[in-house]
């Protein structure tokens, strides 16, 4: 019996090694691709048609849809940033999703809105709409007040009210850069294959100075947790998404800042109101619909349009967010399990979805148990030193390498953090990210799996405190 148990423990140890080996191999491939792609993209930006499209009548209208629930502290900044876009034809729709903190009143007062009468076409069925608010002096802004039913429902409401062929979902605590929309749309206009979704980069607003909805000075946040997230986001966006995009394998676009072709979204039934992480679900649905119907399409990620967004600065709130994200991932994979290893869906079914299932969705179980079992196995002499060192390299030190490369990638390309002190601080956090922060993330994701298994699949609300202390209001 003891021998069986030891054998199982050893088998698990090797399994952990293989898991980390495969994951690190995938990340290495993504990193290699990203290095080439981003450097080439930086050169391409110099002859980008952005300026031509920014005053062309061909540039399609976009509706910026901003769902808001209890965002009183940050919503004005977001709306000001949205209204200042350098884009020829756009409008902004804020959906007040049953806030009880005065979000609607703040909007009405700040923008001097009046109630108007609008025909609401409930194409994607939503919770009842209570009113529409508008100011003729700001004709491209509208606020919709509706009963609370969550972000997905609010987005569907915005889609119903939109009259543009494209919409861009934006989080209520975000600040868009002035040319973000045109940078997001330019590749869509240049593509000879219809682009049904396109995502940009989300960067962390915490610590950044914003005046009247415009980013004025970029500084790093004081919060360590926010610093870890900066490193994490740089890695995720600058090499993760770039790499997946090159392979035409984008499965997630951040709901904080993504552009969609409205008719395609309506064709797949809009956002799923029961999903806690509606952004991934939408992308999967779009893939599935177009592959099933053999319609040519692309889903893209572009690394230069930027949206700055607040991130949680407390462990409690961050934990809620990460659990929700992982729960959303699980829901999407389970909902679309027919894609797994299904050749009818090509690359999506045979490679991408299985990767997400085994390494992203179930990965936290292996990782968390690995952090416990492997060291204990070494301690009790079940593993040799070489193997334990290998585990440390794969599980921790290679992660340090990837995080610091992500920071360097930022430094040699967009360099949005201008000071040398920023670089040193980011590198330091890149190292320490893998000594505690990643592990706690694995724990939260593990918690999400447990929650899913025990049927607790609700949205965990994150408080927005308007933590950007440098904001100046009108």
């Amino acid at each position, binding site marked *: 019996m003891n021998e069986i148990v030891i054998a199982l423990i050893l088998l698990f140890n090797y399994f952990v090694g293989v898991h980390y080996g495969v994951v690190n191999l995938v990340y290495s491939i993504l990193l290699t691709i990203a290095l080439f792609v981003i450097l080439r993209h930086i*050169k*391409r930006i110099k002859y980008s*048609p952005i300026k*031509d*499209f920014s005053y062309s009548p061909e540039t399609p209208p976009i509706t910026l849809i901003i769902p808001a629930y209890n965002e009183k502290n940050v919503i004005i900044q977001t709306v000001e940033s949205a209204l200042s876009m350098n884009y020829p034809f756009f409008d902004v729709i804020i959906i007040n999703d049953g806030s009880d903190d005065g979000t609607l009143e703040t909007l009405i007062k700040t923008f001097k809105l009046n109630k*108007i*009468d609008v025909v609401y076409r409930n194409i994607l069925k939503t919770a009842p709409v209570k009113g529409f608010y508008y100011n003729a002096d700001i004709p491209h802004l509208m606020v919709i007040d509706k009963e609370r039913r969550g972000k997905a429902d609010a987005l569907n409401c915005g889609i119903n009210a939109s009259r543009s062929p494209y919409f861009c979902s934006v989080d209520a605590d975000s600040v868009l850069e002035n040319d973000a929309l045109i940078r997001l749309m330019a590749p869509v*206009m*240049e593509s*000879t294959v219809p682009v049904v979704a396109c995502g940009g980069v989300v960067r962390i607003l915490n610590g950044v100075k914003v005046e009247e909805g415009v980013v004025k000075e970029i500084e790093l946040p004081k919060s360590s947790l926010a610093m870890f997230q900066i490193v994490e986001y740089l890695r995720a966006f600058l090499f993760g998404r770039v790499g997946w995009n090159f392979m035409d394998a984008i499965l997630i676009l951040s709901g904080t800042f993504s552009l969609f072709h409205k008719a395609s979204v309506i064709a797949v039934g809009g956002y799923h109101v029961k999903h806690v992480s509606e952004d991934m679900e939408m992308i999967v649905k779009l893939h599935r619909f177009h592959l099933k119907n053999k319609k040519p399409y692309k889903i893209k990620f572009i690394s230069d349009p930027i949206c700055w967004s607040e991130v949680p600065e407390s462990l409690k709130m961050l934990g809620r967010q990460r659990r929700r994200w992982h729960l959303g991932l699980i829901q999407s994979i389970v909902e679309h399990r027919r894609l797994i290893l299904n050749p009818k869906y090509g690359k999506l079914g045979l490679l991408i979805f299985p990767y997400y299932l085994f390494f992203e969705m179930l990965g936290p179980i292996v990782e968390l148990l690995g952090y416990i079992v492997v060291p204990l196995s070494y301690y009790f002499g079940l593993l040799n030193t070489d193997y334990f060192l290998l585990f440390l390299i794969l599980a921790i030190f290679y992660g340090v390498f990837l995080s610091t490369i992500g920071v360097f990638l930022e430094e040699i390309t967009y360099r949005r953090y201008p000071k040398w002190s920023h670089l040193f601080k980011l590198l330091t956090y890149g190292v320490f990210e893998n000594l505690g922060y990643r592990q706690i993330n694995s724990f939260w994701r593990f918690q999400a799996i447990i929650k899913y298994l025990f049927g607790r699949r609700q949205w965990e609300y994150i408080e927005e405190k308007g933590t950007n202390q440098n904001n100046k209001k009108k």
Partner: protein
Amino acid sequence: AQFIPLLQNRTVLLKINDFVSSPQSNKFQAIEEVLLDLMNEDRYRDEIRTLFYKLGYVAFYEKKLRSRNIIIRASAVDKLGKMLSEPSVGKLIEMLKTKNTETIAVTVRALSKIKSTEALKGILDHLPTLLHEPLIAQKAMNTALTSFGVSAVPPLIEYGRKHSDPRILSSILEVLSNTSADSAVCLFAVEHIKHSDADIRAKALKVLGNVDTESIAFEQNLVLPLLEDPVWFVRLQAVRALGNLHYRKAIDFMGGLLLDQNWQVRDAAATALTKFGNDSIDIFLKILKYRDLYAKESICEEIEKTNFSSMLIENLASENREIQAKSREILHVMHSLHFSTPLREYLKRRKNEAIGQEIRLLINEGSEA
């Protein structure tokens, strides 16, 4: 700072040796940036073009066109376009023969910046291949062709008459819809409103909607049959065009589209009819008596959004009793469908007390009902 006085005095070419530098040196790049910046000012453009040529920039980038690296090639094309280098047009047109979509997109843009007749001809000669394969997105091509401006219109029309490819015709009509329509444009559009392709019919109508009927005569009733087109976006463009043309004989026909099965067409019809002022009142009243709630709501929404409601409210004080009564009736229906905001806003402003009293009466009647 060095350049501007020389450009103003038109002595820059005399001092040209001061600005010569070896390619890719810092001085070379710095001067290039400054000159490209100054190109944005019309008054210096010709001198700067000459400077680019004489300082060797054009030759430098023309050599780069032969590079195998797509980015280097595309960069060079882009620079030649920004330098408005007309002598390079022939070489740029050769770039259109590559099958690389990136190079082609940049080349088309560069040629559209240069805006010469040869550049336009080069694009048009390759247009069938470029759109058919496709090697360039239609919107990107349309943006470039629109950049050529009014001077491109006659060659585009001539080209459109020689080619029947729907994609080409669609692009040409789209570009023409972004220019002010003269008689040649109008004639070309009229020739295509009966095309078998719905997209072309719609775009031809879009062009006709821009025609200034006071200076250009055309048979506006040719558009009427398209109000019954089987394709919704053709009907939409037809009703928009008739609204823009202020063709009063079409009012009753346009009114029929207030009951269209497609909501966008209904909305467009309502918006178009609001442009006819009091002449539309009868048709609005007629449709507002129908049972179709969607149609009624669409009308009310458009009346409110286009400010037609302001005219209706002012009509409450009209000396023409008939107009007064009909306007009142429409406002009554709007109020009953909860489109009351214009009435309440007017009461807040209190411009005309007589009108205010009429509105209060109307609101009270509505409440009692």
